[in-house]
């Protein structure tokens, strides 16, 4: 086994322990440790990705060299390594883009607590990505929930505490359902390692036994993860949680945390239940329907919103709907489209959150549209970035959003019964997206002569502007040369089986 195979383990452990170290460091040092850890994990994931692409097959890492079924396992394939790398990029950019706002948002004495939470969040995300053990997954789901809750609450404004409590309740409900599902699955199969469960599930299905408990277990796990990733009817916690937390938190929560759960769901579908078994349950139709509803109702709520941050948050509901619609198609192409959309949405949504803060900053901190009029002239970089993000969301060619819509549509055309529904809803949702995003873009570019707010120039926000440029580049790269990424996703999914 090559040395590089230790990297997944190293990255989880590094981010976990750096969290602990941060608690005794002064705020400034904690910030540096945080950045270095994210970078280091990113580099390790990149190296791992290259390694896996060259060997062409995934590997399983035994923790402490105890073989299955006793030991705990980590598994790394192209998709896992790529996802970890992408999460690191987004997290680094989100932290960099929100850094200048942190002193104003969080009390000075709590800064290193903030970095502890971010590091913990990273470690739990990495664990969700890499683990091959259902119970480990559950443990890190909880760690993820707690650190995410802390990230929402750390900005102690009345509304955030309410939001955090809401998030806590909904999230714990979700983890509870996941745990139930897990217990039933353990009862049925007697295993906790994903590969072993899958073998037993195949046997069970082949023998035709325990049909109902199996479906109940699948349904519980799916529902649990749907609640946690804010699929449509369970999205009530989302706008407040994203809308009022610190900027970096909002960007990370919307683009990474929910995606971590979705990625876990993908792993469960492929590695625990088995793709074909999952598709033979009615669950995919349920996901499909709620995905479609999310796409429409999320956008409708966003249109009614008069607060730019909450509008972007509601748009997440719609985008999560897209991802579940892809799952619901029950084909490989649909899954590829969903995974691409995870990347595309993560890159776009964090860009929008970070850009929106630049706009509200030059409008006296107000998020009302009336005050945002002409703000793009006061902060040009944020204006351009917000426009780029909006265009990507609407699905204008050359941006990542177009490619994911293209992939969804291509996937939909191949599925007989769901083709028309998905294409029509995709169309409606695109137009609705255009309604609220283009409305905002026009609003921020409407010149006003009498404005009480000062503009800001490049000299005062170099780091911020550079971050935005990186975000835009990421979007355009995903939009223009998507084929390598799509190939990698396909390769990664092939390794899952």
């Amino acid at each position, binding site marked *: 086994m090559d040395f590089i195979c230790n990297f997944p383990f190293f990255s989880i452990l590094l981010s976990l322990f750096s969290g602990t170290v941060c608690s005794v460091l002064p705020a400034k040092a904690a910030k540096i440790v945080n950045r270095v850890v994210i970078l280091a994990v990113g580099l390790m994931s990149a190296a791992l990705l290259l390694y896996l692409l060259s060997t062409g097959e995934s590997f399983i890492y035994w923790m402490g060299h105890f073989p299955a079924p006793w030991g705990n396992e980590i598994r790394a394939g192209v998709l896992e390594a790529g996802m970890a790398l992408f999460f690191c990029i987004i997290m680094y950019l989100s932290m960099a883009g929100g850094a200048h706002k942190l002193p104003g948002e969080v009390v000075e004495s709590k800064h290193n607590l903030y970095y502890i939470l971010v590091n913990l969040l990273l470690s739990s995300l990495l664990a969700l990505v890499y683990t091959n053990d259902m119970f480990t997954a559950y443990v890190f789901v909880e760690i993820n929930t707690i650190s995410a809750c802390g990230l929402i609450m750390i900005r102690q404004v009345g509304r955030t505490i309410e939001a955090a409590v809401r998030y806590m309740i909904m999230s714990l409900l979700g983890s509870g359902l996941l745990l139930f599902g897990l217990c039933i699955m353990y009862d049925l199969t007697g295993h906790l390692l994903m590969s072993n469960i899958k073998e037993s599930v195949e046997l069970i299905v082949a023998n035709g036994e325990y049909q109902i408990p199996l479906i109940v277990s699948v349904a519980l796990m799916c529902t649990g993860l749907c609640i946690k990733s804010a699929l449509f009817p369970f999205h009530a916690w989302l706008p407040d949680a994203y809308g009022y937390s610190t900027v970096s938190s909002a960007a990370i929560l919307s683009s990474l945390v929910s995606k971590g759960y979705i990625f876990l769901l993908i792993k469960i579908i492929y590695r625990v239940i088995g793709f074909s078994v999952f598709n033979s349950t009615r669950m995919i139709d349920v996901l499909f329907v709620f995905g479609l509803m999310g796409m429409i109702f999320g956008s409708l709520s966003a249109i009614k919103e008069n607060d730019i941050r909450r509008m972007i948050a509601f748009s997440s509901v719609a985008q999560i709907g897209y991802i579940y619609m892809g799952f619901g198609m029950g084909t490989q192409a649909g899954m590829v489209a969903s995974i691409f959309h995870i990347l595309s949405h993560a890159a776009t949504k964090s860009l929008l959150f970070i850009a929106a803060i630049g706009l509200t900053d030059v409008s006296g901190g107000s998020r009302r549209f009336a005050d945002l009029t002409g703000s793009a002239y006061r902060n040009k970089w944020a204006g351009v970035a917000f426009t780029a993000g909006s265009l990507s969301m609407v699905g204008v060619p050359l941006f990542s959003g177009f490619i994911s819509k293209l992939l969804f*549509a291509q996937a*939909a*055309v191949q599925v007989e019964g769901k083709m028309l529904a998905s*294409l029509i809803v995709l169309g409606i949702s695109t*137009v609705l997206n255009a309604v609220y995003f283009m*409305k905002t873009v*026009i609003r921020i570019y409407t*010149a006003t002569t009498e404005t009480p707010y000062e503009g800001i120039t490049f000299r005062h926000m170099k780091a911020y502007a550079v971050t935005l440029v990186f975000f835009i580049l990421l979007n355009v790269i995903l939009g*223009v040369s998507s084929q390598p990424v799509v190939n990698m996703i396909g390769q990664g999914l092939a390794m899952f089986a």
Partner: protein
Amino acid sequence: MYLILSSIFFPILAGLFLLIRFRTPLSGENRAVSRKTLTSLIGALLVITAALVVAALMCAKDGFTLFYLTKNLPVCFRIDNVGRLFSMLAVIAIPCAGFFSFAYMKHEARESRYYGFYLLAFGVLNALCFAGNLITFYLFFELLTLSSMPLVLHNGSKEALMAGLKYLFYSLCGAYAALFGIYFLYQNCDSLTFTADGALRASSIAEHGGFLLVTAFVMLLGFGVKAGMFPMHAWLPTAHPVAPAPASAVLSAVIVKAGVLAIIRVVGMFGRDFLRGTWVQTVWLILALITVFMGSLLAYREPVLKKRLAYSTVSQISYILFGLAVMNETSFTGSLMHVLAHGFVKAALFLCAGAIIYKTGKTRVAEMRGIGKEMPLTMWCFTIASLGLIGIPPTGGFVSKWYLALGSLKSGLPVFDVLGPVILLVSAMLTAGYLLPLTIHGFFPGADYDYGGFQKKEPCRLMTVPIVILTMLSVLTGLFPDMVAGIIAMAITGR
């Protein structure tokens, strides 16, 4: 290759440069550069772009692929004869209206934004004409909407903003409907590269023939939004008149033609033989004829000049669509000729309207009595251009309508072969009804008119010369139709 690329990206980059560099208002005390420098710079940019396009039209032979969007979706450019024809219109009308705006925009705010988007739209339009496959076309079709929208909402009033949004949403809905069709075409064609005689696989036609017809219809409707075809025409009379007059000229004369070009491409992809005689053709003919008649009727009742011209665009573009829907070569020739004829005429008419607004501030037709005495050159051009739109020889409009009517009569379609020309005639009559009163009352205001009160109000050269050029072109296309027909014949037969 480099000629095509530079004719697309030079104006786009120049436009972006203008938008980024000259953000400060150009009028008032804190202007960044003098207005003269700016206008001469933009004039030079327009001329260089036009020269690049002409060079590309003459020299470029082969297509090329720029990059791959996904595995089977290349972004590629290729010049064919249909594209060449549309490009000819753009390359003449856009610089003309551009020079006109140097005078017209003197008192407007945020000029550099206007010119920035103007150049952007020019570049995108070139790309649209040179696009080699459907996906490239769609890409620039979206960009065209986005880059021309700021021209509509230029003056920033509430009305303009609403019009801009209306334009945006209609266009996006249409573009999405078209994209919907592109997905299906992509499934049922070997490639999305443009052809004139159908790219559908024979097996697909046998298997999903009915569904493909629905797809074709949805695409027609979708792209038809941009061309202002009947059920989705409402944005056009709202959006075109609120733009500054030279921008309305470009919107009405050139940018709506993007929808026509799109429909030609789509029909080419499906193949005329596939669509001929199906319900799609019938419905399309009905919609086109309704639009022709309704547009003229609405224009006839409209008191505001620019709005009247916009309604007239709705009607005239559907002449073109009617010709395409008939689907034989004569009518196709007529359609393409009408693209040129209407382009020149409508640009000239809008510029005349702009000159009148600029000099007198009058917008309603009723206020324009005696205008011919005050601005004789402008009104003469207006009159000649009107004759072109009505279709009186020797103007271009006559030749194109001749071909359209001939094609329709020859087509052998039931009912429509006669009904078509009849409606075209009635509409031409209405056209005379809504355009000629301006000339009549303009030159012959009647006995009770105060002859002592009027002054010479002829606008400056920067305004009159573009108008005269466009008017002359509209006549020349009628005097020498063979030249145009020659290009079109090439477009039909070989490419």
